[in-house]
């Protein structure tokens, strides 16, 4: 109001009274003036009302913003970070597996997958079809449908795998055309590969896709977090037993992604710990040789270094290619393995329960001597058969006319059955069970693979719980020659004979020699946990008597293994065994030609050399092949020859750094 008077051209001031005056003065007619006046008044009120509403709206906006940005700030900040920050597991590199000479047995090789990130800009179906044609992916309509389904149900921002295992040619032709498919990428990762295929499958085992069972097991052990992002896990053999060592520790990487899941940058990186490299005790050359000499025969060979318990070879024939399982075995292939009459999936060295037959006679001698049931030179007349008192049942000797006068040495050399029928009868099942337990029958050998059956170390309790029948005296007699209820795995037999060869020092057979940390290059050797004095006898010389008997088997004039070991350049010891698979009726003769193939005898042979300081002990089982001394002994001989004369002729455990490893059939493998 002050300005108005001073400045003539001043703009109207914001004042109601003045306004009224103005309008009153400007009006031409009194009535219209009044009407206009009322109109202006209402107008002003309405404007004020609208200002009120506007302020109210702004207040609402402010209150909401205050709520979002100040009160809920923490919550939304977290959600914003969750939006953009993804924690991606970084899978550790699985440890390599080498043989004792550093030959690679299990390798990690890069494989390439074709991954598509479905995107609205590109039609999924056309893209897949184009790529299928371009790269010859061989996808049929069913696969296509499956992929389309997957693309719709996938998690937001995750890709779908159009193809895994791209060939180099496919990668090359994709990279030429990749500009046309900006949402398709080739992703590389490492897959397990076993260069020796079926040679050492039962020992090394394999890795395969993690399934629900594995997930349950891992989560029960609280290890599931460590498998975030991993796709494979050890399923068999060493791969399974040393899974924890091989797998390593999963790392993580914090990445920033945009709303399409594209990685913008890495915020932090927590490196994974690579799995440990394993050096096995196996010599792949010996392993290969075992496969070679077994040929088509069903059976298994175990070679061990008795002093240390290191398994030099463990081969079960027939075997199979573990790479099939890594790739993801097809149903047909798996059915073929399952239905194969040779049962390749079974590890005959640790899972096959066989009657150990005569191979266990030296072990029973240890019992007889320690229990003072026999003396080394005590005479025994070997009848054609053994009869229990007051019984007509004849336990026949393998030689229809008997062996005549026997002492312990000759009884072993010639493998006289009646001597051991008598010994078993006099010892009784309780004593036998006790000693067999000490030798490791009927329980785990402690070998570092999980595929092991326990065999049967028979006892009164065992028969009662198994057959609900009391133990008969007649049940004890065949135990003396390793038959009857007694079953054993080849590995148990190996362990028991190792104890004998070591003169009472028990060694756990094992496949792991050392685990090496690939980053720090720290080596951890396998620790033998067996107590050195776990097997005690009252006189150490008992061992020598039994070992001498085994020496005669190979070197004596009547020895069952003398032909097989004729002309050997080392002094060996051994014991043959021929196990009946079906019982022969009283008064009938065993005739292999009359029996079905699967009912023929199993051939066994255990031997070690050199005699005084054994460096290798070999056990062989051949299913349904007949006599142990004729079939199994030559194979044991070949194994020992190969090891002592060819592979390590100078006596030391291999060259320090061999450049090449000779395999059978003239092949060589270049070492790393």
């Amino acid at each position, binding site marked *: 109001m002050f300005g*108005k008077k001073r400045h*003539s*051209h*001043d*703009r*109207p001031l*914001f004042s109601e009274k003045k306004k009224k*005056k*103005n309008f009153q*003065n*400007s009006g031409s007619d009194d009535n*219209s003036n009044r*009407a*206009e006046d*009322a*109109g*202006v008044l*209402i*107008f*002003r009120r*309405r*404007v004020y009302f*609208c*200002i009120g*509403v*506007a302020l109210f*709206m*702004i207040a*609402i*906006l*402010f209150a*909401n*913003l*205050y709520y*979002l*940005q*100040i009160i*809920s*700030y923490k*919550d*939304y*900040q977290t*959600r*914003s*970070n969750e*939006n*953009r920050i993804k924690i991606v597991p970084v899978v550790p590199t699985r440890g390599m597996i080498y043989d004792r000479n550093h030959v690679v047995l299990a390798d990690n090789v890069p494989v390439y997958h074709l991954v598509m990130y479905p995107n609205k800009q590109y039609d999924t179906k056309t893209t897949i079809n184009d790529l299928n044609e371009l790269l010859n992916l061989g996808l049929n309509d069913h696969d296509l449908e499956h992929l389309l389904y997957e693309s719709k149900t996938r998690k*937001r921002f995750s890709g779908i795998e159009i193809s895994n295992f791209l060939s180099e040619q496919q990668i090359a032709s994709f990279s030429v055309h990749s500009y046309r498919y900006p949402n398709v990428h080739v992703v590389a990762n490492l897959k397990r590969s076993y260069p020796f295929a079926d040679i050492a499958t039962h020992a090394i085992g394999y890795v395969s896709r993690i399934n629900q069972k594995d997930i349950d097991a891992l989560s029960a052990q609280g290890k599931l977090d460590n498998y975030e992002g991993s796709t494979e896990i050890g399923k068999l053999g060493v791969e399974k037993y040393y899974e924890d060592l091989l797998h390593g520790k999963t790392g993580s990487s914090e990445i*920033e*992604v*945009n*709303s*399409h899941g594209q990685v*913008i940058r890495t915020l932090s990186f927590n490196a994974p710990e690579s799995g440990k490299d394993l050096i096995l005790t196996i010599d792949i050359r010996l392993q290969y040789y075992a496969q070679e000499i077994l040929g088509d025969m069903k059976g298994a060979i175990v070679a061990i270094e008795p002093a240390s318990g290191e398994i030099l070879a463990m081969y079960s024939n027939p075997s199979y290619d573990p790479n099939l399982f890594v790739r993801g075995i097809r149903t047909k292939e798996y059915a073929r393995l399952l239905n194969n009459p040779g049962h390749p999936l079974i590890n005959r060295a640790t899972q096959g329960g066989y009657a150990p037959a005569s191979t266990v006679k030296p072990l029973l001698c240890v019992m007889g001597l320690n229990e003072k049931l026999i003396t080394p030179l005590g005479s025994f007349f070997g009848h054609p058969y053994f009869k229990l008192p007051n019984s007509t049942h004849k336990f026949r000797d393998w030689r229809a006319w008997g062996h005549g006068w026997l002492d312990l040495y000759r009884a072993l050399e010639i493998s006289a059955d009646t001597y051991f029928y008598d010994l078993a009868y006099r010892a009784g099942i309780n004593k036998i069970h006790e000693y067999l337990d000490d030798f490791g029958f009927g329980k785990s050998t402690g070998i570092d693979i999980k595929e092991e059956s326990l065999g049967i170390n028979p006892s009164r309790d065992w028969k009662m719980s198994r057959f609900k029948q009391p133990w008969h005296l007649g049940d004890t007699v065949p135990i003396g020659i390793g038959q009857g209820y007694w079953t054993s795995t080849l590995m148990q037999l190996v362990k028991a004979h190792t104890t004998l060869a070591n003169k009472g020092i028990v060694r756990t057979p094992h496949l792991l020699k050392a685990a090496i940390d690939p980053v720090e290059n720290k080596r951890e050797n396998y620790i033998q946990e067996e107590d050195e004095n776990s097997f005690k006898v009252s006189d150490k010389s008992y061992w020598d008597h039994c070992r001498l008997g085994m020496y005669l088997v190979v070197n004596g004039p009547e020895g069952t293994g003398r032909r097989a070991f004729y002309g050997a350049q080392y002094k060996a010891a051994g014991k043959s065994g021929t196990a009946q698979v079906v019982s022969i009726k009283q008064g009938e003769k065993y005739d292999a030609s009359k029996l079905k193939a699967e009912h023929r005898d199993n051939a066994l042979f255990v031997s070690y050399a050199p005699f005084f300081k054994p460096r290798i002990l070999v056990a062989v089982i051949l299913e349904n092949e007949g006599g142990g001394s004729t079939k199994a002994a030559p194979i044991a001989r070949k194994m020992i020859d190969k090891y002592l004369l060819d592979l390590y002729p100078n006596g030391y455990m291999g060259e320090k750094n061999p450049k090449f490893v000779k395999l059978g059939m003239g092949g060589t493998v270049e070492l790393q």
Partner: protein
Amino acid sequence: MEQSQNKSSLEPMSSNEQKGSFFFVHHIDIPLLLGLMASLFFSLFVLYSASGQHIDMLVRQVTRTGLAFVLMIFVAQIPPRFFVKISFWLYLLGIILLILVELFGDISKGAQRWLNLGFLRIQPSEIFKVVMPLTVAVFLSRSTLPPKPVNTLIAFTLVGIPTVLVLLQPDLGTATLIAVSGFIAIFIAGLSWWWIAAGTALVGAALPVMWNFVLHDYQKQRVFTLLDPSSDPLGAGYHIIQSKIAIGSGGLFGKGWLQGSQSQLDFLPEPHTDFIFAVLAEETGLVGFLILITIYCFIIGRCIYITLNANSSFSRILCGAFTFTFVFYIFVNIGMVSGILPVVGVPLPLISYGGTAMITLTVCFGIIMSIHTHKKISYFRKN
């Protein structure tokens, strides 16, 4: 009287007065112009970030804004009586174009909104953002105020016709804005509270009918989504959730210009147009919001001042309607982006990218300037 003002400006006076008179002569309102320029300047920063640091986009927007300002100045030169004269024809043209759109319109995002004239694509519904208040203001100011019931009915019919035509496109957002701008005009003119009460009751009764017969599924979905965004986090609710996360994570001071992870990593839908406020709120926080609101309040305040000082009922109604429709735009956009209103395609005035909306607004402000600067000053000089 203007001449006398010219004369007085020739006399020795303070430079301030001279300048003021110069712009007054050229029909430019300095405070309003400054306010608009401040908001546009502010917009360029937000837009640069929201467009993913797209300098081309920025240049295009600056060009369009420049053209829009030239248009605004041009409109400001036109005396208000000219708008009164052409308002009826504009209204008729708009209705014809809307019908043409209904018959021949281009379909974009499921709605017919564009009319392709071969050399030009126009959005007739946009015209009504200006023409609607104008027509109502012209019609009601012809007779005494407050309006008589008959006139009120006619005014509502005038508002109703384009609203329904736009609804048919279907474009709920624009239809609402047109209806609201018309309603504000009638309200300011002095709509009887009885009418308002009756209307409210009528709308309340009509809502269920609308829901069942008029609203499209996608529009219903938007309402559902608004009520509970988490019910459909990967579908329709995704935008609202992401937008709220962007705003909420901004906090008091924001993540910093160009540092908004939600905006920069594509989590926001249409960050440079409808959802630009989320970018602003994420990167500059509550402080940024307050700055924006301050600028807006300045513009609104100036417009209210002009409205209150307008010298004819036509001017008052038109200015008031423009002003409060502008407030309504702001409220709808920010409310939608911050999750208290359904998602309707309404850009943030003066900030969002886009030429059409900018031109509509500058035309409105041009008319406001024209009204303010074409007043017969003699009214106030007589005393």
